[in-house]
């Protein structure tokens, strides 16, 4: 137990850290006064919430033990102070192009970071699977491009940049909308086209926006010049922000991307181009679409890094490396993240006519980003199985609540039909489907 040792403070004002949840707690208040922050069990150095959890876990373990006829499982109630706070991991070395050195191969991850990455990836995974379910129930319509399998990319990138930086991607955008600050509730309500959606139901799956996140873009490759333009604005305004500009292996063959490489390099724009190579552009594998599948080399005069996109630490380290490069004023840099999507291109694609089920299964069993992180944390004693399970339960609940909201929130009002055509504009009249239908548009 550690107190913040301030003897002059009254005993009941002393604060300390609970050993399990590491939250600050106050000692019991003096008589007649109500506690303001958590209740404590000072004896074991645990707050009551954690003590409760510990007792539940002990009882669960003992129950499991009793069921197994006292088999030699690891039964001892571990004290939660025994978790390793941080560990060093060896990650895959990245291939580099026109760079003298690449991202680090020895990285440190703290327990808190690990738990946060786990929670975020699990939230994204469950959110996409829920979207899959809702689509099959025909509650989500139109296009729905799911991101499951690629979670490490979004989480790793966000871990390396600030919320004050900028990001733009293509249509497989639900994950990035979440990491950039959108809530699951608003994302799902946008998918179901309700007024509580992040774009009030006007945009749908491919057009979600939030602060410093420019969507969600439907036209393949069009987001790349946009991203360079955002970077131009960063350079123009002299803030040390950068723009992360994502596109897929399919888009990598678009001409406007090469135009953008040229201008970004010429003007030394602070943009990180990231090619999320999931092996397939819709149904066309990379071998059938590209004369050169070394997407990290396609920048020609822009240095590049090829990264294992299924390992969140690899992505984070490479993104940090790229962000440092950009912020030092050296200009753009290119990253290729080798990743994989479990679903088809979109919900209308079963995803097995151009690849085998065995391939999908193999990636799931050997390289799943969430499993990889989980194994790392468990084998390094950074978390317990129960703790991670608890996170799973919380995430499931969050998704359920969001789905509930997304299916019960009403659709946008018809009065909203013509609104938001313009920004900061006096109201105008919009022609409806017939000459007598005169609709109103406000900004």
């Amino acid at each position, binding site marked *: 137990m550690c107190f913040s040792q301030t003897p002059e403070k009254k005993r009941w004002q002393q604060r300390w850290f609970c050993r399990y949840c590491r939250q600050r707690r106050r000692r019991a208040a003096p008589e007649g006064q109500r506690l303001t922050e958590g209740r404590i069990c000072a004896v074991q150095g645990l707050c009551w919430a954690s003590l409760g959890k510990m007792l539940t876990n002990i009882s669960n373990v003992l129950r499991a033990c009793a069921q197994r006829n006292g088999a030699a499982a690891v039964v001892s109630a571990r004290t939660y102070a025994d978790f390793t706070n941080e560990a060093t991991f060896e990650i895959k070395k990245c291939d580099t192009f026109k760079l003298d050195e690449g991202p680090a191969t020895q990285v440190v991850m703290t327990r808190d970071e690990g738990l946060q990455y786990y929670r975020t990836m699990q939230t994204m995974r469950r959110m996409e699977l829920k979207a899959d379910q809702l689509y099959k129930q025909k509650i989500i319509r139109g296009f729905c491009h799911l991101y499951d399998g690629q979670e490490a990319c979004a989480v790793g990138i966000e871990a390396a940049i600030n919320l004050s930086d900028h990001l733009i991607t293509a249509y497989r955008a639900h994950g990035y909308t979440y990491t950039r600050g959108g809530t699951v509730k608003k994302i799902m309500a946008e998918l179901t086209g309700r007024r509580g959606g992040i774009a009030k139901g006007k945009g749908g799956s491919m*057009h979600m926006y939030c602060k410093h996140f420019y969507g969600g873009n439907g036209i393949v490759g069009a987001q790349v*010049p*946009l991203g360079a*333009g*955002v970077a131009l604005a*960063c350079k*123009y305004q002299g803030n040390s922000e950068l723009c992360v500009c994502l596109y897929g292996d399919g888009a990598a063959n678009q001409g*406007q991307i090469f135009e953008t490489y040229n*201008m970004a390099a010429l003007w030394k724009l602070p943009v990180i181009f990231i090619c999320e190579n999931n092996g397939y552009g819709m149904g066309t594998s990379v071998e059938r679409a590209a004369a050169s599948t070394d997407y990290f080399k396609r920048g020609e005069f822009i240095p590049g890094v090829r990264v294992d996109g299924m390992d969140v630490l690899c992505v984070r380290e490479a993104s940090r490396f790229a962000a440092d490069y950009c912020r030092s004023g050296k200009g753009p840099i290119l990253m290729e993240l080798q990743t994989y999507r479990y679903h088809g291109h979109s919900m209308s694609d079963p995803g097995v006519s151009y690849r085998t089920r065995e391939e999908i299964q193999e990636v799931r069993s050997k390289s799943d980003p969430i499993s990889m992180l989980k194994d790392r944390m468990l084998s390094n004693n950074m978390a317990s199985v129960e703790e991670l399970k608890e996170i799973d339960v919380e995430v499931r609940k969050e998704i359920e609540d969001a789905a509930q909201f997304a299916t019960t929130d009403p659709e946008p009002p018809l009065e909203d039909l013509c609104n938001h055509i313009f920004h900061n504009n006096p109201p105008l009249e919009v022609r409806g489907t017939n000459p007598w239908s005169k609709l109103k548009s406000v900004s």
Partner: protein
Amino acid sequence: SPLFHKFLKEALNKVPKDKCVTVRDALNQAMDEELERDERVFLLGEEVAQYDGAYKVSRGLWKKYGDKRIIDTPISEMGFAGIAVGAAMAGLRPICEFMTFNFSMQAIDQVINSAAKTCYMSAGLQAVPIVFRGPNGASAGVAAQHSQCFAAWYAHCPGLKVVSPWNSEDAKGLLKSSIRDDNPVVFLENELLYGVPFEMSEEAQSKDFTIPIGKAKVERAGSHITLVSHSRYVGHCLDAAAVLAKEGIECEVINLRTIRPMDVESIEASVMKTNHLVTVEGGWPQFGVGAEICARIMEGSAFNYLDSPVTRVTGVDIPMPYAKILEDHSLPQIKDIIFSVKKTLNV
């Protein structure tokens, strides 16, 4: 005597200092003033900086504002139009110049899908304050690929404002309004008008002179027939009106100034007065500006005031030829306007 001199001086000062300014200089002034007024405004396009502008519209701006604000781009329309839109999304106010609007076809996806639709798709979260400007329509002897008029194409799309000035006042006032507008504006200039001087009132020469987008102007009042036009052909209409006036036909000439949103009320008010309407444009007839005016007049209250169907005077429905005689005959001439007026009036 000193008193007389003082009186003379005062009298001279009161005389409005109208000046003759070419459209090119008016555009230059507008951009200069807006660049000075707002740090976030910048110009990018091919040859806009060190070349002083392909048509010298941006002459002197690079010398005054430097590389940061006047940016020469490589020949990558789709790329630099996208970059301009991205910069607008991130808070700047770009002016994206297309050397001619024919080249904007390469970048039209960025103009429509990335710029025009974004405010709506994001339910107002993401604004795109950008101006796309450049010469539009026929020039002289530049043949088919360099002579198309894009007014109808851009004016078709919700989310865009489409502006088409005629004289120097229009050019300056509308460009300033377009730059100050928080929405994507397509600003259609005309290369043949760049060198034409027009009188600019003292008011128009001031730094805060703007013309509202979406309002047409009655250039000449008349009572027998209404001529509606935009850009270069407003001048043709005024010339035709001068000829017709000698024959006793008084034409009311309306300068649209803005194609989208179109000021149909002004046209309707005029038609209710004159009962006859002729539209004049340089673009092709099918699905064009004149076609839209006809449809709107028919749908509105002015239809009952028409004494004859609306007549459209347009460019000939062909790709632009090169030979001078052919080129001259593929665009509306003053005699075509006079002929159409007389046919419409049945005289």
